[in-house]
């Protein structure tokens, strides 16, 4: 099955500036994840191998609506940057072994799957927002910034829902909707970061460049929350 994931990488990296090829790579990844899900009997959301593949697929899936908006119809470099980002994380996924064990009883609930899947959709949209911020800084054009705002707002909504579902799961699993772990601290930081970003919109057009930069920095905070905390800090709430 892994060949589906491997096959998607060159298509993303070398062909995603064309929308049909972008979609083809996404379909390959979806087929890989579906096959893996069927063989495990659950969503593949445990361990860096599976989560990176899921993240990569989420980036492509969440990019898709932006590839078809009127404002970005001829922006092939933007298509390619979305595909490149998805390809990069798919490539990273190959570096880690996949975990083929059944879910531990504490994770065996829909709340867990909902919590993690929503978080990855949010991370993916923050990635798309960062790319749109980069496009604004390179080419100008307020359309990029408006789309960046929409991507970040939608990502923020997914992320908030992920936190709510995580809180409900935590209450049923551990007796509390909140635990003081580095992961939770960084989740709060990420949520506050995008709260700040969305509030900054009210400052007006003078802040456009800073707004774009903030959208880019947000993705770095996202990556630290997802990968950095698990790799650099000691947290019981990890992959």
């Amino acid at each position, binding site marked *: 099955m892994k060949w589906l994931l491997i096959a998607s990488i060159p298509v993303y990296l070398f062909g995603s500036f064309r929308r049909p090829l972008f979609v083809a790579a996404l379909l390959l990844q979806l087929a890989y994840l579906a096959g893996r899900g069927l063989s495990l009997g659950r969503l593949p959301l445990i361990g860096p191998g599976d989560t990176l593949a899921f993240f990569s697929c989420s980036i492509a899936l969440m990019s898709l609506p932006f590839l078809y908006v009127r404002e970005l119809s001829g922006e092939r470099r933007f298509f390619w940057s979305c595909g490149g980002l998805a390809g990069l994380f798919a490539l990273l996924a190959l570096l880690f072994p996949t975990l083929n064990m059944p879910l531990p*009883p504490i994770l065996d609930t829909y709340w867990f799957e909902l919590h993690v899947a929503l978080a990855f959709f949010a991370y993916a949209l923050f990635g798309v927002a960062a790319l749109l911020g980069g496009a604004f800084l390179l080419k100008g054009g307020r359309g990029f910034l408006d789309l960046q705002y929409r991507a970040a707002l939608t990502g923020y909504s997914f992320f908030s829902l992920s936190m709510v579902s995580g809180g409900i799961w935590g209450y*049923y699993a*551990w007796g*509390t*909707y909140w635990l003081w772990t580095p992961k939770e601290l960084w989740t*709060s930081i990420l949520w506050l970061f995008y*709260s700040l970003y969305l509030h*900054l919109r009210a400052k007006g057009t003078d802040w456009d460049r800073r707004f774009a930069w903030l959208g880019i920095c947000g993705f770095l905070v996202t990556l630290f929350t997802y990968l950095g905390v698990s790799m650099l800090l000691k947290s019981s709430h990890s992959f």
Partner: protein
Amino acid sequence: MTTDDDLHRSLTVLKQLHNRLCSLNLGLWLMAGVMLALAVGSFARGSAEGAGLNDLPLLLWLREAPLSFSWWLWIAVALLAVLCLNAILCGIEALRKGRSLAPQLMHAGFLLIALAHLFSAYGGFKQQFQLQEGGAIGFPGGECVRVERISGETGSMGMLSAYRADLRVGNGALSGVRPNAPLFYKGFGIYLKEVALDPVPIALLEVHREPGAPAALIGALLFTIGNLMLLMQRRGR
């Protein structure tokens, strides 16, 4: 004349204070400050898990932990308190001016969640019990919950793939607890954390009281409704 001047001066000072407290700039700086405090806290010596922060209600932990451990959390809580005040005043101002309801619902949700944390920080409770079959947990009022049976299924990899404990509560009824399926009794939640079957069946049970949970849930619902309304409003803009 002097009294009028004093009154006027006081009103001006109050108005300035109000304007400052409900300014967007203050809100942005406070958010940045809370983020910074939490980020430093995640690396600090008294960081979250290492310092037993999950074992005690927050206010008790703050009172007992040395300042060298808890300083980052004191800063975060203080900034968060001013941020809540900022959100309340901004919300009132926006409603007075007839602005969109969606962000105000989100603010209200955020405030309720902050309040929920305060309730739990004050009245939260957690205690672990390691019990064999026949062992009991005592509750206020003299009632107890007794462990009747501990069972589990071993999966293909040799680990327990499912486990449960059957508990006899005060009125004689039998209830099972499993991971993600606690028993709520007398305002407490009884959670099954771990089970070992050899040499004798033994269960690790945790009793929790989380007084902030209802407020957190209502806050989350309000926030989500406001968020969805905002998404609808911003669609196509």
